[in-house]
Every structure is written in C-alpha cells, then in structure tokens.
C-alpha cells in the first residue's frame, strides 16, 4: 500500500528526515515512536502533502503511484487521513458543516454520489455517539475552544466518517484522560480492517494496549533506527530511547 524509500525532507532550510524507509501493507498497524523533534510529525505532514516540506531525495509510493506530486485534497480522496498532533481551530465553520464539506468533497473527487444533509447527519451522529461527542459540540466551530481531549476525539470522529485506507495518527493519545483514551483506543481498533492500514505515532505504550501494532519503529534524528514487533514498544516504555541506534540491535521489521 505504502512504500517509502530513502526519504529525505527539509523544511525551513533544515534537513529533518534523513533517509526513511518504510513499507506498510493493507491490514497492518505500524507504531512509530521516537524522541521529541526526531521528525515523526514531519513524516506525517509529508504523507498528507503539507506545503513547506521539501522532498530532497527518495520516494513515496501509494498503491504504486508517486504520492509526492498529488495535492493534499487528492491524497485525502484517495484514502489518506492525517490525525493531527495539533488539530487546527477554524473559527466560524461549524463542525457539522465542515464534515459535510469534507465527506462530499472526497466523494465528488472519487466520482461517487454526494450525501444529502440528512445522510451526513445520520452518519456523523452514529459515529459521534460512539465517541461520546455531543450534538452541541458538532454545532460549534471546528476545534474552536475544544479541550485537548475533545480535539483528539474529534480527529477520530473525522477518521470514522471519512473511512480512509491509510490513517496516519500523530499522537492521537496525548492529552487524553483514561476514559477518553479508552474511547479513542476502541475507536481506532474498531476501524482496523483488512483493507485499511494505520501508522500510529505515539510516545506511550498505553495506546498500544488498545490497538496492538504489528510493527513498531523508532524514528530518531530523521531515520528509522530500530524496528520490531509489539515487544519493542514494551521495551522502550521500560527503558526509554537511551540506547537507541546501535546498528546491531536493529531487528527485522517491515
């Protein structure tokens, strides 16, 4: 589904990713962990197509297609979803209106029929209920004045209604209390499917208790320095990144 080869990315004149390799197949869940500032969010932005990140080397292919030339909206329509580490506040645009625009924009791009207001409402309310997002919150402007936890739940709501094929979730667990973590964890696990892959960026094992990854990678200083199974996350949780990078400890991964 996704094949990243020797990816180099710069932003603001500074090299951030320095040769990332990653292969993700349908049905897989990959966790990416790594110290602050190592380039995890940068990788997620590059996958979603954020302007301002320059690819200076390497390649990204998605279903065999060169992803790097596609506009962000086209990537979204083709099934790529980015759950933002810091969801953006959009004053003046009601959440429900935004969801309707997003759902129908993607459907239109894919050549599918648009949903009417009723159809959108039913779909959104069903998923919002599971995440305990109130009707009142859906009336409020996108993320505006939402608490940290509410923003993250709303990201998962968007993922649930947009039904992506590749979800990149950037620290969707940070800022969540125990109950919200369970809701979000269940929300994400519920979306696991044979034709859907996920890249879950996190600092903590606790999200991975809810959504057990097939692979765990460590991104440090712009490179994937270690890869392993779920036990790598447990080890990192115990021991930290202190010893990361020695070449000999790299385990076979994706």
């Amino acid at each position, binding site marked *: 589904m996704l094949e990243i080869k020797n990816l180099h990315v710069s932003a603001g004149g500074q090299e951030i990713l320095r040769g990332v390799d990653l292969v993700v197949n349908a049905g897989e869940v990959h966790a990416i962990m790594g110290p602050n500032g190592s380039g995890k969010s940068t990788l997620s932005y590059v996958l*979603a*197509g*954020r*302007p301002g990140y320059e690819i200076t080397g390497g390649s990204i292919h998605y279903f065999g297609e060169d992803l790097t030339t596609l*506009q*962000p*909206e086209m*990537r*979204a*329509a083709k099934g790529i*979803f*980015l759950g*933002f580490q810091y*969801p*953006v*506040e*959009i*004053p*003046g*645009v009601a959440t429900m209106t*935004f969801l309707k*625009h*997003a759902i129908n*924009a*993607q459907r239109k*791009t894919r050549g599918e029929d648009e949903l009417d207001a009723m159809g959108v409402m039913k779909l959104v309310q069903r998923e919002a209920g599971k995440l305990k997002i109130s009707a009142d919150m859906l009336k409020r*402007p*996108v993320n505006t004045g939402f608490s940290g936890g509410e923003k993250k739940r709303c990201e998962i709501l*968007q993922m649930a209604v*947009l039904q992506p094929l590749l979800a990149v979730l950037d620290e969707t667990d940070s800022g969540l209390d125990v109950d919200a973590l369970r809701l979000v964890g269940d929300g994400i696990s519920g979306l696991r499917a044979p034709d859907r892959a996920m890249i879950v960026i996190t600092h903590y094992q606790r999200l991975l208790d809810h959504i057990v990854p097939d692979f765990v990678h460590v991104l440090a200083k712009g490179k994937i320095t270690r890869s392993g199974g779920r036990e790598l996350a447990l080890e990192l949780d115990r021991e930290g990144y202190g010893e990361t990078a020695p070449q000999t400890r790299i385990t076979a991964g994706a």
Partner: protein
Amino acid sequence: MRHYAKTGLPTRKQEAWRWTDLTPLYDHLGKPSAPAPSTASPLAGPFAAIDCWRLTFINGVLQNSSADLPAGVRAISLRAALNEDASLAANLSAGEGAAFLSLNTALLNDGAFIHLAPDVRLLKPLHLVFFNTGNAQIRNLVMLAPRAAMTLLESHYGAPDANYFVNQASDVHMAEGARLSHYRDQAESPNALHFQYLNARLEAHCAYDGFTLTRGARLSRYEAHIAINGAETDCSLNGVTMLDGAQLSDTTCVMAHLAPASRSSQMFRNVLAGQSQGVFQGLIRVAKAAQRTDARQQIKALLLSPKAVQNAKPELEILADDVKCAHGASAGQLDEAALFYLRARGINEAQARALLIAAFLDDAVAQIRGGNGVDAAEIRNPLQAAIGAWLARQLAVTHV
C-alpha cells in the same frame, strides 16, 4: 453651494481624506444629474426576495408610491415633503466642513422622506431601491418619533456599464425609544463613484442596528457621523467590504457618545483582492458627560493578494473617566494551517479558501440583529449568499 465653492473638494492633504484620492471625480464635476431612463432595470440583489414596502429611485428620482403603508407612516419623495412643509429643511444637516454634504445640499435632486408617528412599528421592512444610470445627488430624511420602530433596507446599484457619480446623504433622527434596523447593499456598477454620508442622531433608549455590504463602485466612501444624544441607547454599526481590481473603498465613522450609559459597537470585515484598497477611519468620541459608556470597534482585513492594501486609523477621544472602550485593527492573510487542515480532509484549495473567507466575514454578518419586522436570518441569509457568490467568482469555485 457657497460652502462647496469656498472649500472645494477635499484632497489627501486633509486628514479625513488621507488615503482616498478623489481624482476620478473631477470628470463628473459640473455635469448635471442624469434624467431617468425610460426603462428601469429589474430589481436585483440580496433584498429583492424579502417581503417589503418598496420605493424605487432612478438617478435619485422617485418612480412609484407605496400606497398601502399603514397609518402613521409616511414614505414619499423628499421634494414633495419639503413642498408640503418647508420647515422640515431644518432637519437636514447643512454640511459645514463636509464637502460632499455641501455639494449634496447644493445640487440636490431628490430622495426619500420617511416619517413614523409615535409608537408605530412597521411589520415588514421598507426598501429603498436606488438604481443609477447617471449622476445623482440623493438626500434622505428619516424621522422616527418616540418608540417608533422599523427596518429600512437600501440597495444601491446601477446599469452595469454606466459611469456615474452618486452622492447620497441621509439624515436620521431617532426620538426617545425609537428602533431602527438599517441594512444596506452597495453594489454600484464597476465604474461608478459612490459617496454616502450618514448623519444620525439618537436620543435615549434607542436602538440602531446598521450593516453595509460594500462590493460595488470603483471608488466609494461611507461616512457615518453618529451622535448618541441620550442615555441607555444601543448603536451597532457593522459592515463587510469585498473589493477586487483597482477598487477603493473608504469607511469613515465618527461615533460620538454625548450622554451616559450608552453602548456602541462597530465590527467591520474587509476582504481585498487584486490591487484594491480598503480604508477605515474610525473615531470614538466620549464626551465628559458620557460616563459608563461601553464602546467597541474592531476592523479586520484579509488580504488575498500581495498588492491589496488596507489602511486603518482607529482613534479614541475620551473625556469621561468611567468608560469601557476597546478597539483593534488588523490586516493579514489566510491562516495557512487552517487551509491545510481543510485540504487534508479532501476540500480543494479554492473551496477551502472560500470557506475560510466566508467564515471570517461572517463575524460581521452575525452582528445583524433583526427584529423590527424582520428575522435576522431573512437579512443574513441573502447577504451570505451574495458574499458566497462573490467568493465563488473570485476563487472560481462552483458554490460556497
């Protein structure tokens, strides 16, 4: 005419005209007002579908009468009103120190005279439609007796290719407890010059709710002088300005609090494309007697192109000590982070821009309070549709 001859047209050397170059006007001076054309243009614009009483003016000349107005309401041509009662002229501001007002007073064609008797409340709006094909000097006089209430709509538009100069002045007198909702759509033809002078005097316990959508004319100025003369009065003056190409639009407002415990709020949102220029000059004046005044003013401009310019000069002149005043002016570009967020959800770039700009402008549209015979939504919705249509054209998207 004497005052006008003495002072002539203002120039940019005068502080109140610092950013507005009047050179395009010179061509029109000395030309008389145009006669009405034989065929009127169909009623258009955001207020066209609202159930109203309507008076249509072509080049300032009233074309019809509204026979079915309720008792206690007069809406006739100003000339007719002055012929009946010459003493009404005392209610027209003379325009000392204001060149366009002097010009208007000197060359006046006609306009509307609206009078509501005490306690009369209009159950639907009165709509003044100003259609222009040539020069016009228009004067309106609106007098609301105590506790009278109405919604007054104004549409200003013209023949699409006409090159004309419209200079309109309105005097609004609100007696104690009167309520006026005053919503305007300035959609003059692209070559037109449009000058609008509002002189309003509000006594105690009044409520004035004003909104102007400015989108037409090559050069336009909306100059409002509001004197809050009584206590516990609410004055709200808001607007959206959308400019493109070489358009220049100037909003100049003096909000004078002369009595205690009144509130005023002004919210303006401008979106500027092309090489257009927005000007905002806003003075809040709080007299010594106007204790417990609450006055707010906020102007924000969104620049869609590197060549668009917004000039803003908010000013406070406060002589009372117990007042709440807040003012702010800013100009900037669209929030790139928000734009990317929308695009990452599949909304294409143009559509995402349109959504964000509409949301930005909606701050001002949302100030429209309605009441006085019309629901806020009846006014807001068609204005939002007009804004959406402009954005759709601007960004080449199918709908907003």
